[in-house]
């Protein structure tokens, strides 16, 4: 009688232990899955608006009148897309420092992302979006974003 009761208790404990282990494993996997998006806010810059003529929030180093720029950081990724498409438009999205500016063209209906590495630059830079060529008359809304880790999303 006692041994049967003991074995029942043992079974219950095993079940409880299995449940706890499974719960711990699930929590660990969930933490791994969500960590990068949570960390993405560590070093994050985003901007939405029209170019040219928008005052730059943090100060650009190259084309003050037609750029928008982030502050200085060790950016790993910059992303830009054209929002409300009024006409054919052309932007340059990328990075800049005092000596160098690099980017990729972003046209109407496109979303493009790049890294300092792809631009042959150091990470420590300003993320920028530039109306290009800078005498374009048409203006379209552009969404820009840069992160030090993780993904940009609008």
């Amino acid at each position, binding site marked *: 009688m006692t041994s049967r009761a003991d074995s029942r208790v043992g079974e219950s404990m095993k079940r409880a232990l299995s449940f706890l282990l499974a719960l711990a494993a699930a929590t660990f996997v969930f933490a791994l899955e969500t960590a990068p998006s949570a960390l*993405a806010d560590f070093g994050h810059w985003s901007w939405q608006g029209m170019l040219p003529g928008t005052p730059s929030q943090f100060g650009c180093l190259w084309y003050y009148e037609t750029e928008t720029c982030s502050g200085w950081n060790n950016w790993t990724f910059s992303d830009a897309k054209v929002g409300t498409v009024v006409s054919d438009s052309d932007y*340059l999205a990328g990075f800049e420092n005092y000596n160098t500016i690099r980017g*990729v063209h972003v046209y109407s209906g496109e979303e493009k992302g790049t*890294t300092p590495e792809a631009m042959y630059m150091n990470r420590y830079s300003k993320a920028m979006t530039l109306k290009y060529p800078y005498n374009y008359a048409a203006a379209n809304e552009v969404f820009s974003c840069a992160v030090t880790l*993780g*993904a940009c999303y609008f």
Partner: protein
Amino acid sequence: MYRRRVATVVAVTAASIGVVIVAALAAGRVVSSASASPGISWRGTPVKLGTRMFTGGNVRIVQAWLLAKRGGLAFYRLERSDGRNCFATGKAADFLRRINAFACSDRFPETQPLLDLSVIGADRPETSLRVIALIGFAADSVASVGAVDDAGQIVARTPVVHNVYMLHLGEDTRAKRVQAFGDSGAPLGAPR
């Protein structure tokens, strides 16, 4: 008589099986070719990418294909969970794990010949922006991609192979715009 009947039955059965196999193979080919983008006939090799870059929110990469490796870069076609077809590049030496640039377009390759990821920039004291490297993806109609100067003269040109192009021009180039060329050598669309 009996033998002839048996032979006929065997022949008809074998023929039927053959027809079924051929039909199945044909169907399989149709299904697999449907996975390629229209206008991008090169399908490449399926790969598993270990990156979640640029797939914020609920968007993720469903499938990736390695189209080519050129100039130390790997070129990928991506299918995202939101149904959007995108393209990306990464360092070829990174064993297909990381992406360092990507592009998604509603117009490519149907109405736009290039999905360009060329590096544009300048280094002081020069402040005029130039094409430093030609990098990108091209529709089947594009035979080569060039860099042109302000006067429209071709400064450099590289062939499109497996729907991709890559040519490093360096910082001292006078190339200003990117231009697609067809089989005949004629420009396709305006320079960008």
